[in-house]
């Protein structure tokens, strides 16, 4: 396998990835795409911290600062955190539930390419007249007013990316509900699978409101409608509601898979069964459900009235209960465990206090009268960075170390990993802890500079130093990844030695069909049970026989490229038209815009047509091939 892999030309590898429908390769694509945007978002964060390091700084102009904060938020949420979590979902969930692929492999590939082209489209704004500058929430009163095409890039880019995420959500709901191995009941699903299921359900329910809001914005800015244009009878508050009806579930989409990854880590490295499994499942579902009931807590100061504010405030506080259940369950999982302090475990241990601090400030923000003080200050910035970095980013870094062997068949260096962890952990607290006080002292968020002598100087400098530490940690991680790939020291099955769930029972590298025979699941922590009772051999649930797999396809790439082209057509359509909003009506006219719009849609619809009318029946993996592979594995084990 390794010998043949080395002989392949670079082009054949690239072509393989461009056309792949294999969830393991799509996971790698997501990891690369998300990782790239993560570095980009991190770069933007560094620019922000450099600008704010000293008072009256003119490193970035006020307009540039608005663009940078908008793109930092948008990139990190939509193009980095979510795709990186989806990378782990793709890499792990089908293996964890004993499936040979996701339910809709073609849709999986399409989801990735749509996300990728949407992200590229959004970031091309830097080179095409300026990035969006209305904040990642893009409140309509700012967004309609924002001159130039920046906000158009935001609206179209997110619309395209969001479509990709929605596809992935549908895919994972279907996969987890319908494709579990025999014996894997819902209450035997590992927590990673459970949180993926709930996050996918949240995606399915939360993304349509965003899609609608973005369409309204697109229509207003590019096709002359009046949904948010107040002088024509529009209402900008509608955007805020739509955005947060999406936006609040979105933060749970980010945190729930993180909970899943940490639950796995705690039970692997404390070498204990997860404490309170059923209450963990219950809490996950409850958090998902509550997530839709609290969106207006982002809008307390909009003027909803005391009753509405009180209802949403209390509902928000209620979320602390299921989250508290989880925190205690994790602590009790570690309690009395035989703990191994590996890099993933360090992140997991650091996550508990860090995330809890973010949760506590969340309760403070949910208290309406207090929120009137905290609103739009650095206190809010500190709060959401504590939950998103202390929760999601820690989980992504932990998951990267934990699942690296599963994805790439090598191990990241533990020593460098621990350096990364300690630097990142210190830098993170240094950056954001002090921002709570900055907020309480009255420093407003989203303002490009501050005056000398207001008492903000020292705290901002501390914050910037923390950000530098996080940047250094990221560079060490990048070095670690490069060195690991260069060294290429292969590891075998169950590389951590304490894998409990099904994915660790597979040989590494995982065969492209995952399971030669779908295993029988006899309980929670399926692999651990077989380790205790059957010498670590999974019991097959079916005889060795041919099975069906899908063909690779280049169509997802073309289909997504069509949407990318469409985006440019729509973007320049309103330029210089007299019916357009003031923001773009004085820009040069682009007569080609309509034709580009039509051409882009044509590419997408023709490729959809080709996909629909040209039968692609896939192929069968033959019994003989499986027997050969199994024999080779047997031989390898004998040699060891």
């Amino acid at each position, binding site marked *: 396998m390794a010998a043949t892999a080395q002989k392949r030309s670079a082009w054949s590898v690239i072509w393989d990835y461009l056309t792949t429908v294999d969830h393991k390769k799509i996971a790698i694509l997501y990891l690369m795409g998300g990782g790239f945007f993560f570095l980009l978002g991190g770069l933007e964060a560094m620019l922000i911290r450099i600008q704010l390091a000293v008072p009256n700084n003119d490193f970035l102009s006020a307009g540039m600062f608005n663009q940078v904060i908008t793109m930092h938020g948008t990139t990190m949420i939509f193009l980095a955190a979510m795709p990186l979590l989806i990378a782990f979902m793709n890499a792990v969930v089908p293996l964890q539930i004993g499936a040979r692929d996701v339910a809709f492999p073609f849709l999986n590939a399409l989801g990735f390419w749509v996300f990728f082209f949407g992200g590229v489209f959004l970031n091309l704004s830097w080179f095409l007249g300026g990035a969006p500058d209305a904040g990642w929430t893009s409140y309509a009163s700012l967004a309609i007013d924002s001159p130039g095409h920046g906000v158009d890039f935001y609206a179209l880019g997110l619309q395209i990316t969001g479509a990709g995420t929605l596809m992935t959500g549908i895919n994972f709901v279907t996969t987890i509900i319908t494709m579990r191995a025999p014996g894997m009941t819902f209450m035997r699903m590992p927590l990673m699978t459970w949180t993926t299921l709930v996050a996918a359900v949240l995606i399915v*329910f939360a993304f349509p409101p965003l899609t609608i809001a973005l369409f309204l914005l697109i229509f207003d800015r590019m096709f002359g409608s009046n949904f948010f244009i107040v002088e024509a009878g529009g209402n900008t*508050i509608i955007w805020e*509601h739509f955005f947060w009806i999406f936006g609040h579930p979105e933060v749970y989409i980010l945190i729930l898979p993180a909970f899943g990854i940490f639950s796995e880590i705690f039970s692997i490295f404390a070498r204990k069964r997860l404490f309170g499994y059923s209450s963990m499942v219950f809490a996950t579902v409850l958090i998902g459900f509550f997530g839709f009931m609290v969106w207006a807590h982002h809008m307390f100061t909009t003027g*909803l009235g005391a009753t509405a504010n009180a209802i949403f405030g209390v509902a928000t506080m209620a979320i602390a209960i299921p989250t508290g259940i989880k925190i205690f369950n994790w602590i009790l999982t570690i309690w009395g465990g035989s703990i191994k302090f590996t890099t993933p475990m360090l992140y997991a241990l650091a996550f508990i206090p860090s995330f809890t601090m973010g949760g506590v400030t969340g309760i403070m923000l949910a208290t309406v009268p207090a929120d009137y003080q905290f609103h739009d200050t650095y206190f809010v910035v500190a709060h959401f960075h504590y939950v998103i970095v202390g929760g999601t980013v820690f989980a992504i870094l932990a998951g990267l170390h934990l699942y690296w062997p599963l994805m790439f068949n090598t191990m990241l260096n533990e020593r460098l990993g621990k350096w990364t962890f300690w630097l990142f952990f210190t830098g993170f607290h240094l950056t954001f802890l002090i921002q709570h006080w900055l907020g309480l002292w009255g420093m407003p968020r989203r303002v490009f500079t501050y005056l000398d002598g207001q008492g903000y100087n020292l705290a901002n400098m501390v914050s910037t130093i923390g950000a530098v530490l996080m940047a250094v940690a990221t560079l060490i991680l990048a070095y670690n990844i490069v060195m690991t790939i260069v060294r290429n020291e292969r590891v075998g099955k169950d590389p951590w030695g304490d894998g409990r769930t099904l994915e660790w029972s597979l040989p590494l590298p995982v065969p492209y069909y995952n399971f030669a025979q779908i295993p029988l699941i006899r309980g929670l922590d399926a692999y651990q049970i077989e380790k205790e009772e059957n010498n670590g051999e999974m019991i097959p649930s079916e005889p060795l026989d041919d099975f069906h797999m899908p063909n690779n396809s280049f169509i997802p790439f073309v289909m997504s490229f069509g949407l990318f082209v469409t985006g440019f057509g729509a973007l320049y359509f309103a330029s210089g038209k007299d019916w357009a909003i003031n923001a773009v009506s004085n820009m040069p006219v682009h007569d080609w815009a309509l034709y580009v719009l039509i051409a882009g849609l044509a590419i997408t619809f023709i490729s959809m047509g080709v996909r629909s009318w040209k039968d692609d029946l896939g192929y069968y993996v033959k019994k003989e091939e499986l027997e050969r592979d199994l024999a080779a594995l047997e031989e390898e084990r004998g040699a060891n």
Partner: protein
Amino acid sequence: MAELNQKPLTDVQLKQRKLERKIEMRHHVTSFSLMIFLTFAAFAMVALELDPLIITAAVIVMALVQVILQFYYFMHMKDKGHGFIRLFMLVGMYFAIAFVLCYVLIVWIGLPIGSV
């Protein structure tokens, strides 16, 4: 995508299958005629020029009944193996109704809740 694995039905099974289909058909026809009747009633109320408030209320109730009939009898939500679909639709509807209510109260009517 496995090979087809069909056994011929026994007489008893065939009889059972036919009976099920007959009942299914009866359900379809009944609910279809009920839906036609409800539509007719809605038009009739408008033609009779009743109080608009009564018409609005009645039409909304009848529309709700139609939606339920549509989902359960024509789109098979009542059948076995549709548990998840039912759960998703009901939860989604619950959220959607909550959102619409919220929009009507605090965006459209525009007065803060509690001040009316």
